[in-house]
């Protein structure tokens, strides 16, 4: 796929470019600030935009705001945002664009897991939603009452579902059988009164929508 990269720290930018190229992608442009990002994306219409939240020139979150601007102009443009620390508010603002599809928000540290990161980038480019586990923990953590009805195991399942894991991946992560995971998933949906269970990406969005509907405490 064709990618536009925006990152102000040179070392990090070079690392991202090397990583993407290693996985067979083409980097159309690698820029260091938000105005350059806006220009490059409008010119090239890449398959994926990868940008840092914080870049120099303008406000501290100029990368995030550029990402939101681009998604507003072109809701089908896949955007993956990297942040140095978790800001649930920023992640949610991003999720609100383009119906939450083709969008991702990850902690920068995750890039060090090159294979996992390449998979996340491909998922976002393919229209998926990728949220950093830390953001998901926060979202799960702030929904108190209904989440309290879940067993500890069901909470773990909910957490992984919101991160976009499939039943098979959840089974592997929790060392459970596929059937056991299916049972927990159904139980979570029933207890939280979620709409009839759907698979794949729609499930992620349903779970995230439910987590967010509680609002901040």
């Amino acid at each position, binding site marked *: 796929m064709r990618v536009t990269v925006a990152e102000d720290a040179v070392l990090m930018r070079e690392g991202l470019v090397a990583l993407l190229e290693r996985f067979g992608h083409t980097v159309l442009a690698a820029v260091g600030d938000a105005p350059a990002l806006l220009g490059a994306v409008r010119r090239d219409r890449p398959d994926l935009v990868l940008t840092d939240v914080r870049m120099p020139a303008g406000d501290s979150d100029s990368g995030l705001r550029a990402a939101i601007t681009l998604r507003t102009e072109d809701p089908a443009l896949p955007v993956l945002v990297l942040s140095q*620390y978790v*800001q649930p508010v920023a992640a949610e603002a991003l999720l609100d664009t383009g119906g939450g599809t083709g969008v991702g928000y990850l902690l*920068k540290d995750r890039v060090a897991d090159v294979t996992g990161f390449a998979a996340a980038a491909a998922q976002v480019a393919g229209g998926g939603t990728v949220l950093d586990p830390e953001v998901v923990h926060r979202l799960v953590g702030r929904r108190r009452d209904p989440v309290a009805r879940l067993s500890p195991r069901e909470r773990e399942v909910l957490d992984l579902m919101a991160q976009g894991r499939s039943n098979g991946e959840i089974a592997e992560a929790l060392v459970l059988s596929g059937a056991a995971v299916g049972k927990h998933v159904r139980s979570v949906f029933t207890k939280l009164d979620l709409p009839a269970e759907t698979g794949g990406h729609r499930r992620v969005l349903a779970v995230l929508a439910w987590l967010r509907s509680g609002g901040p405490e």
Partner: protein
Amino acid sequence: MQDRQQLRVLLLVAAPWTVTAWAGARAALTRTVLGPRGTELGEGLADVATTRARLVGAFETERARIERDLHDGAQQRLVALGVSLGLARLDVADGSAPAARLDDAREQLGLALGELRDLVRGLDPRMLTDHGLAAAVTDRTRRCPVPVRADLQLPDRLPPQVATTVYFVLTEALTNIARHSGARSASVSGRTHADQVILEIRDDGRGGADPATGSGLDGLAERVELAGGRFRLSSPAGGPTLLRVELPCG
């Protein structure tokens, strides 16, 4: 050579000023304690409070700077290093000696990044400013590798500096417990009593905690003192450890 001479001159000039400032501070404190009555005492107390507020403000600025430096410097370098190691790993065959060495290096790097993240989180009150004290403390207790029971009954609207100090105290205390105590469980409680916030942090670890041994406790004691509070520690050898902090919030 000339530089050194200049420096010496500067030191000579600077030294008496330091002494004067110290004497001035002493005088202010003495006045506070011994001041005869009424307005003079009131003014003295206000002076001390202003100085204290200024010190706490300087502390916050410094903390924000360190946090930013760590993010922009060390963390970026470590992540970039992780990418290099990860890419190198893709180029060597599974099961080979270099692969094992690279996997080990990546694991070490992962730990270093995790520790750095925890350190920055301790410095970074963003969770606190965005979500309030209760959420920030819950977040912190969940991250503690030792199970923590938290019982906080504090008003929602504590003065920001008090909330920051409470958060800092709990963060440092839990970090200490995780690092040094060997505890299996811990508890934190917070309540207000007569215009004071009273925090108690207990753990069932091995005890023997001592602020003088350079653990995080000395910084904690200093911070509490700066906020005009009291810091008390009971930690007999063999445990348990109880840390009690009282902070004025009126």
